């Protein structure tokens, strides 16, 4: 079920990227897209009735049903990268605003 939610978010992000003409809204759409992808990654590792993939003094048998830890590690990296891109995008948005005095691409009079 989670996969469907993730795909809806990805599509929503793409729709926003294609329709919005405001720099800040484009960055938000980009974030929605990234969250969708991240959610999808986490959902791939989900196992019904699985427990957290940590060996403890209580859970120390390899027969236990763990969820897949790898997607969680991947999503951590992907989130960090996403934050970096967003920060850079916002810095560029500030530059664009200083240069054109607007966030709207239509009003900038440039391709």
């Amino acid at each position, binding site marked *: 079920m989670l996969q469907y939610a993730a795909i809806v978010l990805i599509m929503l992000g793409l729709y926003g990227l294609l329709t919005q003409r405001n720099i800040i809204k484009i960055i938000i759409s980009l974030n929605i897209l990234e969250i969708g*992808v991240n959610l999808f990654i986490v959902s791939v590792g989900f196992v019904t009735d699985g427990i957290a993939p940590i060996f403890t003094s209580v859970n120390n048998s390899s027969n236990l049903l763990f969820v897949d830890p790898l997607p969680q590690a991947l999503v951590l*990296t992907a989130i960090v990268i996403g934050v970096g891109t967003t920060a850079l995008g916002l810095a560029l948005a500030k530059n664009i605003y200083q240069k054109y005095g607007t966030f709207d691409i239509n009003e*900038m009079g440039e391709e």
Partner: protein
Amino acid sequence: MSAILLIVVPLLTAFISILFKKAAPYMLLIVSFASVVALGYMPLEVITIGGFNAPYGINLILDSYSLIGLYIVNSLFFLVVALNCVKYKKMSTILLVSLAGLNGLLLTGDLFNLFVFIEVSGIAAYLITTTNKKPLATFNYLVAGTVGSSLYLLGLIILYAMFGTLNMADMANEIAISGASASATAFPFLLMFIGLGVEAKLLPLNSWTKGILGSSNKLTGPIIAAVYAAAIGFVFGRLITDLFLINISEVLEIVIIIIVIASIVAGEAMAFSSKKVRDILLFSSIAQAGLVVLVFFYGFVGWGVFLIIANAAGKFILFVVANHASDELGTDEVSSLQGLFVNNKVVGVAFTVASLSAMGMPLFLGFVVKMNILGDLFSEGNLLIPGIILVTSLVEGIYFVRLLIKLWYKEDNLPEVKYDFTLKYVVVVLALLLMVFGVYTAPIENEADNLNTISFVEGGDL
């Protein structure tokens, strides 16, 4: 010496260079030169990171394929840096990060690690392009690049869910063993192809290219059009031959071939109709990117590699010369650059050699590569693709010759552009190399045959 130093040292120096801002350009120069030299002392090997053997851990593969890629990317990177480190001091830290990212792209044998390096080198590229002073174009590049790499990530996660591995070679094995139908893997492959296609400038995905390269300067032009293009070309080659061709559906094959041919045809047509030097060069590099992917797609690894090298060296010369002129004159209209080479004969000859090589004239490296590719395609009984390559080469020839005539001949009112000694030296040496290997073809043909036999078995073929 371990190849991991190629990633670690630039990254570490990047952090240190933040503390010593004054010394940063020298650090950049030393590190980028040292990477080229150090390549000679690196044995071909597979490096396991963190003690986890592949396929569980990440491994870096230094085989003869990635070694050639590292040589060309690192040497061109050093040349770009040597020409620009005085003028663009502020970019030193970012250039160090991008060097680490590019080396990582070429070395990694892991799909997710590849995504990380795409993003590292991508973010560095966005920052480098801010020196164009066109924030909107850079923003477009950022959005296109981020969407592309998100799609790549989505594709690789679907593959992970299907086959349970992220190691490239292990993934190829798993796909072959599992007997999954070609249509099952077509969707993730398509997503990954789109993701890389954004960076490689393939046609429907390259809306950022004109904004970035059309207003490029002496730093961004050569680094995006030559260095990054070469690195992404090598990544494409690795992924296509290692992964996509293992299990490709007919529909996806048709889609990819249409995309690639559209890039070639439209790129050459746009270059033909452009009136600005940088536009001509950037559209021609779109066409060349398409050709590179096409060659890999037909499995000619060796000639694909040399096509990338010929393109990268040629585009380096063309963009350095054109960008220097447009930086000085503030315009790059062909009409206002007319007669540029009358007083700059040395640079003019190098520019001419590079453009003749790009269009595939005999005596230059481009000719050797194109002729062998055409020969291989013909001997496979393929007539459509060679026909398209020949026609587009003719178009390429027309617009390059037209450009050269404009740049060489004019009586009075010559544009005043001074080229410094370093730049002249660099472009002349590269042009000489293009000529030498265009005549003395034996080592190239040997190496190409050698590369053709590489099979990307687990951990690379050493």
